[in-house]
């Protein structure tokens, strides 16, 4: 009890007395925790429910059957006649655009007559009115907010249709799915898929654990896939996991930077209370007690920070969900975010990271405080001398860490998570932390001299002052450097990626216009239009070629992929694909035209370890088809594997002539602007849109930029915490060296000179951190691009240095450091020299 009181006196009182600094530290911890909580919450909310919105009506199925190009209707008939206690739910799935709002919503066609699962509790929403089978009957989920009886103009596939909303389907609050529901016959017509089903759900008895797949196999076409239900969700999850991990790692960087701040604060306390500690030790406090006092202090910071962080994180998560949701929607699947729910796990995560980080960062200062004899504790700081003497050893360890980091880059991913890739930057950051003292000492010595000319003796004094507090200086440099490295590496990575995508879009989108089913496009849309649209376009004067393109979803080795069927003959005139492996385009086109070859995206090649010359077996509509790989091409259209084949040749296996899009190539002398109207006229009456290629590129880049918005937000927060750490460190420096400042004042230093001294120190720290951060960031960028991206996404990205951005960022960082120095400078210059000297 007595000890507790003493602890309280030692710690809490001083925290209360030094409110501003305690608040700063708690804020930093809170921000770090908040970012982690927000990313976790947002990730959970968005991804927990980020099942594809097409799964809204999945129900309680145990399996699902799919087939590239769709399942022929008759398969369903064969299935339901199977003498097994199975129930089958056929589905037509697609998207319809609401003409009024332009929103694209999933449209389901279900068997309103025969599907008994529609009425099963909890398995599916039930429409609630008559005229089920009228071709214009549609039911809207309640979250769409459309009243029964309303007329609803929609565009499905390439047709505009007037529907009548017969009723509203209640959806659970949690899901709030937005969708339309029709009878299967009506849906097939609306989506242009007569004769085909997109999916058949299989409901098996729960109590029987037979191998249903084996029973179903003989009935379904060889090209069909029978998968456990929810595979799609799993696919999405898996895909999203890499993305989520990257976000997580970034959120942890913030707490890492926050840790430096805690370390700083507690070190400052130790230094400032050295005398007090000495006295307490002298009157009989044990080392353990002193150590626990400071660890306790760290824990208190952590706990307060975690509590505040939870609250702030919950708020941040609202924005984060939107950002993450936007990214996921644009990169992966159309989906609806779920609820933000503060789960026990999230709370535990917050407290663990907050308190854990705080205690860990308090460890060294606490040890230092407890170390040494009581009298020694009253004397000079030991840490600085320790740092000096140990820096030789540190350098060796740093070299080892760097070596390990390099080794990590060659570690293969674990379950698609690039563990080695994540470890490498951490190891590098560790190395930087270790060489920071020595490096700082050298740089400061040189800087002090160099700066004396423009800034006067003050600059030299400033640099010397920093060099004298290496323990503190190097920590703040490391913290800033880590944050800077984050900015630099993301800048380089995203910049490179963006540049690569821009280049790729440039080369991929060769046509002048693209014609596609109306409504916003997007992943998984699967909307198609009649082939006649292409034929009409071909008759337009000034049109040189029309490229027909169709995509089909399929699976290869149980991983989803997209098979694009293109008019390969046109590629000879309008090459839109670049090969990784140096294949000769003409030869490749000729091979594709034979119909027994495809080309595959880099992603596909990497993921399945298949290369030019290999043969793959694809489950196409009619069955398993052996196809050779003619080449591997660059693709940045998304995270999905992509295969390209010749449309004409492969129509044999996927006999559906409808088109996903058509590329219009104009004659070189055609009037580009006038063509738009002519093309529109040619396809009028069809629900298709004619988009200039430039618009598509811009849209792609816009989506790209939106996808990375949250990344920048996280960086900004990490940087902000680093700046807080900087301000705090400078405050500590000012406090530590206040007697020297007073002395300077006595010997004729003006207020402005003292302020300049602190600002020069801030600038020096910023510059030092920028430099180190630049190097660390460049290395991390390499790791990101060559290891993490490659391993988790499979893209190879050409390295581009966004020089202007980097220069700008570094400038901002130095400037921000100076700004961070403003308050400490004010404090330093306001110190009344007399009182300082008197107090000492």
């Amino acid at each position, binding site marked *: 009890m007595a000890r507790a009181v003493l602890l309280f006196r030692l710690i809490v009182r001083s925290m209360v007395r030094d409110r501003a600094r305690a608040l700063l530290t708690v804020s930093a911890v809170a921000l770090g925790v908040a970012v982690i909580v927000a990313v976790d919450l947002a990730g959970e909310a968005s991804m927990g429910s980020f099942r594809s919105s097409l799964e809204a009506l999945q129900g309680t199925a145990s399996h699902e059957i799919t087939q590239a190009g769709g399942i022929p209707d008759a398969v369903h008939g064969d299935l339901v006649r199977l003498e097994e206690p199975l129930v089958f739910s056929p589905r037509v799935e697609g998207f319809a655009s609401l003409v009024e709002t332009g929103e694209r919503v999933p449209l389901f066609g279900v068997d309103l007559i025969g599907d008994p699962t529609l009425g099963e509790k909890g398995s599916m929403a039930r429409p609630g009115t008559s005229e089920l089978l009228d071709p214009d009957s549609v039911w809207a989920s309640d979250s769409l907010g459309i009243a029964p009886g309303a007329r609803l103009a929609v565009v499905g596939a390439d047709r505009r249709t007037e529907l009548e909303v017969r009723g509203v389907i209640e959806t659970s609050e949690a899901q709030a799915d937005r969708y339309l529901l029709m009878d299967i016959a009506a849906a097939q017509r609306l989506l242009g898929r007569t004769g085909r089903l997109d999916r058949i759900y299989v409901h098996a008895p729960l109590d029987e654990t037979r191998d249903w797949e084996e029973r179903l196999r003989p009935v379904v076409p060889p090209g069909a896939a029978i998968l456990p239900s929810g595979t799609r969700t799993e696919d999405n999850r898996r895909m999203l996991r890499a993305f989520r991990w990257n976000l997580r790692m970034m959120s942890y960087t913030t707490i890492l930077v926050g840790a430096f701040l805690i370390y700083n604060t507690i070190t400052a306390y130790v230094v400032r209370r050295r005398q007090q500690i000495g006295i307490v030790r002298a009157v009989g406090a044990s080392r353990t007690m002193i150590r626990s006092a400071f660890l306790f202090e760290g824990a208190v910071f952590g706990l307060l920070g975690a509590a505040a962080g939870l609250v702030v994180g919950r708020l941040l998560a609202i924005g984060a969900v939107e950002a993450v949701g936007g990214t996921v929607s644009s990169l992966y699947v159309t989906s609806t975010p779920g609820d933000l729910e503060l789960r026990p796990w999230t709370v535990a995560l917050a407290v663990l990271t907050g308190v854990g980080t705080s205690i860990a960062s308090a460890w060294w200062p606490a040890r230092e405080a407890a170390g040494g004899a009581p009298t020694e504790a009253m004397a000079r700081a030991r840490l600085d001398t320790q740092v000096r003497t140990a820096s030789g050893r540190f350098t060796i360890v740093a070299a080892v860490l760097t070596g390990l980091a390099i080794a990590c880059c060659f570690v293969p991913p674990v379950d698609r998570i690039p563990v080695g890739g994540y470890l490498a930057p951490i190891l590098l950051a560790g190395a930087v932390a270790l060489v920071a003292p020595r490096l700082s000492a050298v740089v400061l010595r040189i800087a002090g001299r160099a700066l004396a000319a423009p800034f*006067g*003796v*003050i600059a*030299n*004094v400033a640099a*010397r*002052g920093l*060099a*004298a507090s290496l323990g503190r200086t190097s920590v703040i440099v490391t913290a800033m450097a880590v944050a800077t490295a984050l900015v630099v590496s993301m800048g380089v990575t995203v910049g490179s990626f963006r540049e690569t995508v821009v280049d790729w879009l440039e080369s991929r989108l060769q046509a002048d216009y693209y014609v596609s089913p109306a409504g916003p496009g997007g992943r998984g849309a699967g909307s198609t239009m009649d082939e006649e649209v292409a034929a009409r376009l071909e008759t337009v004067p000034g049109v040189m070629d029309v490229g027909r393109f169709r995509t089909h979803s399929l699976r290869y080795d149980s991983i989803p992929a997209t098979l694009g069927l293109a008019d390969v003959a046109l590629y000879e005139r309008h090459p839109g694909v670049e090969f990784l492996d140096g294949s000769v385009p003409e030869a490749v086109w000729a091979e594709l035209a034979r119909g027994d070859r495809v080309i595959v995206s880099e992603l596909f090649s990497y993921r399945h370890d298949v290369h030019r010359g290999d043969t793959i077996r694809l489950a196409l509509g009619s069955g398993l088809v052996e196809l050779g790989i003619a080449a591997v091409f660059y693709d940045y259209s998304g995270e999905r594997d992509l295969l390209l084949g010749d449309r004409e040749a492969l129509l044999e296996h996927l006999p559906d002539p409808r088109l996903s899009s058509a590329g219009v190539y104009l004659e070189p002398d055609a009037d580009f602007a006038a063509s738009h109207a002519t093309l529109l006229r040619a396809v009028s009456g069809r629900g298709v849109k004619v988009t200039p290629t430039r618009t598509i590129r811009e849209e792609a880049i816009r989506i790209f930029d939106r996808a990375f918005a949250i990344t920048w937000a996280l960086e900004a927060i990490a940087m902000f915490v680093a700046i807080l750490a900087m301000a705090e460190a400078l405050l500590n420096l000012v406090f530590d060296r206040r*007697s*020297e400042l007073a*002395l*300077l*004042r*006595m*010997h*004729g*230093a*003006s*207020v*402005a*000179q003292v302020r300049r001294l602190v600002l020069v120190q801030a600038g020096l720290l910023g510059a030092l951190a920028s430099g180190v951060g630049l190097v660390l960031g460049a290395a991390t960028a390499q790791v990101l691009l060559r290891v993490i991206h490659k391993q988790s996404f499979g893209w190879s990205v050409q390295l581009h240095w966004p020089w202007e951005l980097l220069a700008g960022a570094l400038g901002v960082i130095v400037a921000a450091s100076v700004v961070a120095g403003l308050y400490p400078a004010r404090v330093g210059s306001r110190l*009344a*020299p*007399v009182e300082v*000297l*008197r107090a*000492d």
Partner: protein
Amino acid sequence: MVLRFLDVEKHYAVSDQRVPALNGVSLDVGEGEWVALVGRSGCGKTTLLNLAGAADLPTRGEVEIEGVRTSSLDDDALTELRRHKIGFVFQFLQLLPTLSAVENVELPLQLAGVRRARPRAREMLGRVGIAELADRHPHQLSGGQMQRVAIARALVHEPSLLLADEPTGSLDDEAAGSVMELLLDLRRQLGTSILMATHSLEVAAVSDRRLILRDGKLIAGEEPGGL
């Protein structure tokens, strides 16, 4: 008159209570004069020196340095005044540990924006007799040597008034003696007025005049006998 105190009062606010440090002090220090300020620890010596050095302003009364009233000046002007007219020597905390001896000495010149400060600093170090230690850092110097560096620094810009607060307080007798000798010598050479606070009568004995401070007041005569 280099320094004049006119009925100076100085209070410090400690926990809402006014603690008087100086109470109605008036004194003059003439050109080239060496005045010793004698008193027990806590009697207000340091306060008086701070006021004399334009490092602090009186609560009431006036302090004039070379005829300029400090109360009429802003902080920059006070700094300017210190830069040119005043030199400080303290008992502790004399030197910036990050700077070498010569860098410490040239500091006031540099702060005042004087070019080519280094030769003057070296010359000054020569005068205090430790030219050969110019490039040493404080932790490589003995107490007496440090005090010599401090004195060199206090006089390098040739101030009209040297304020010394127990300059020998932390030195052994031998070192203290030689520092005193040095100060006498320098005053002779430079004609600097000296106001030195000390509790040691022995030290005070070398002065031209002794002022006795007790509980913030100058008491009795100016002779040792008054103590």
